[in-house]
């Protein structure tokens, strides 16, 4: 119990440290809230240009829902949490290496995963705030009405997706330790998952082999699950199976991510290349 308390304190210390660093660069901090809104606009405009209006009959045929703006918004807003795993957790160690503080942080009397967990906590809180802000601004600007009756139950697939992405984040952090120039790994995983996740389209429009790959990603179930509850999207599995698959991916990704991270960490400490640039 004492040990858990000790770890939790370290996780929170890391979380607070990150908030302090971010808030000290005020313009940058404000930008993190505005940028995701700007990021989404080309997807909206592209959709409007292709359809020639806001409602798509074909999308309705596929998903039971025709408003392309709401559909695209929900997909991309949730994908923000993928950034938590790929960038905040994955690049956490590389950032300390850049700043020259890696060794100081790593001599703290806690396991290294605690440090990554602190980054995950901070990033989830920050991303959560961004998500709320982004949704409110876009909902007001585009006059979107969401069915908030199901909001609490919609949080379940979201939370399960975020938990499984933590496993992925730990995995990327381990690989970053190994290859050093880790942004390529973060970016590659981010790009790959963005391609295979049905963010702004249903699974059925993807080629068969991509649909199969997509079914291996927690982001697929997270996004389809949330859209199922909030806009009643027709999904190709039962909602129970969405929950089960998400829970399985939490276990698989966490165990796999931790094993890789700990193996690489041990190997680098043995070879003395942990702080190599």
């Amino acid at each position, binding site marked *: 119990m004492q040990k858990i308390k000790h770890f939790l304190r370290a996780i929170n210390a890391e979380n607070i440290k990150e908030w302090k660093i971010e808030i000290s*660069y005020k*313009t*940058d901090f404000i*930008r993190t809230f505005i*940028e995701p809104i*700007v*990021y989404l*606009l*080309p*997807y909206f*405009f*592209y*959709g*409007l*240009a*292709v*359809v*020639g*209006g806001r409602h*798509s009959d*074909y*999308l309705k*045929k*596929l998903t039971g829902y025709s408003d*392309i703006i709401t559909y*695209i918004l929900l997909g991309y807003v949730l994908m923000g949490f993928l950034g938590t795993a790929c960038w905040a957790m994955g690049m956490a160690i590389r950032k300390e290496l*850049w700043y020259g503080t890696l060794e100081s942080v790593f001599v703290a009397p806690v396991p290294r995963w605690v440090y990554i967990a602190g980054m995950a906590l901070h990033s989830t809180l920050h991303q959560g705030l961004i998500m709320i802000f982004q949704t409110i601004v876009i909902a007001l600007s585009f006059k979107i009405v969401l069915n908030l009756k199901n909001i609490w139950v919609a949080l379940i697939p979201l939370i399960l997706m975020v938990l499984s992405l933590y496993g992925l984040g730990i995995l990327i952090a381990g690989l970053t330790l190994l*290859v050093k*120039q880790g942004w*390529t790994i973060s*970016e*590659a995983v981010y*790009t*790959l998952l*963005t*391609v295979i996740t*049905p*963010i*702004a*389209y*249903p699974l059925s*429009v*993807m080629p068969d082999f991509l649909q199969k790959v997509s079914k291996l990603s927690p982001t697929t179930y997270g996004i389809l699950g949330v859209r199922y509850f909030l806009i009643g999207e027709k999904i190709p599995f039962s909602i129970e199976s969405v929950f089960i698959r998400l829970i399985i991916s939490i276990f698989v990704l966490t165990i796999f991510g931790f094993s890789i991270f700990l193996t690489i960490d041990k190997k680098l400490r043995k070879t003395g290349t942990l702080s190599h*640039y």
Partner: protein
Amino acid sequence: MSQKVIVIKEEVIKNFKILRAYWIEIVYWILSPLLWVLPLIFQGKALVGGLKSVAFEKLTGTSNYIAFVLIGAIISTYMFSSIWGVGNSLRWENYVGTLEFILNAPIHPIFIIIGKLISNTLQSTIFVVSQFLIVMLFLGVKFAFYKLLPILIGLVLLIMGLWGLGVGLSALTLLIKEAGGILHTVEFILYLFSPVRYPTNIHPITNFVSKFIPLTYALYIIRGTLLNIKINFWKNAFYLLVIDIILIPLGFFLFKKIYDNSRKKGTLGHY
């Protein structure tokens, strides 16, 4: 060979050596712009049920939205490279602790920046040509070589304008230090208001702002040539040239002003 040319050449070689050391980045920069297009293709398919859109044709002159976004993604490589490859280059030297060393070389740093501009342009061109080759090979797209000249003119004019932008941004990183945020903002503004992923004439505001961005005119020329869209080539080339004439001296002037000021204040190596 004059000292200036040697410095430029060495800077180009250095940047290629760094890129070769991180070879996975080469693969990444070639493939990722093509991968980023896939979600837009699926999105288009989900919205209209096919690979052509009549509404899209009314706005752009082509119903082929896939070709539209593919060309946008490939050519935008130059813009992102100018922002991050050149704009962030001095900050990067700062990170790796080599900024003072290169600035201490007995030559004006603008020649080092020119070396960075040339190496980034060469690298971007390798990426862009590889992307076009992939598209031609795997998607069976045919390319008529007589179209090469107008495309090259559009590209050269675009690259010149982006050089001005890159130099100006690199100066900004000397002034603001943690300028990653500003570079991100510039990237997002240019990305939002350029017709990279959507036709900017869909909204009056995006249409207005896009007229000040060189990528807009370059994309008009390149898409028009490749997709047989009716465009006024000379008018677009002229607008690009006007933007270049403004951006290039402005970028170099900003660099000189900020560099001299930072040296006077002694803040060059500040973190």
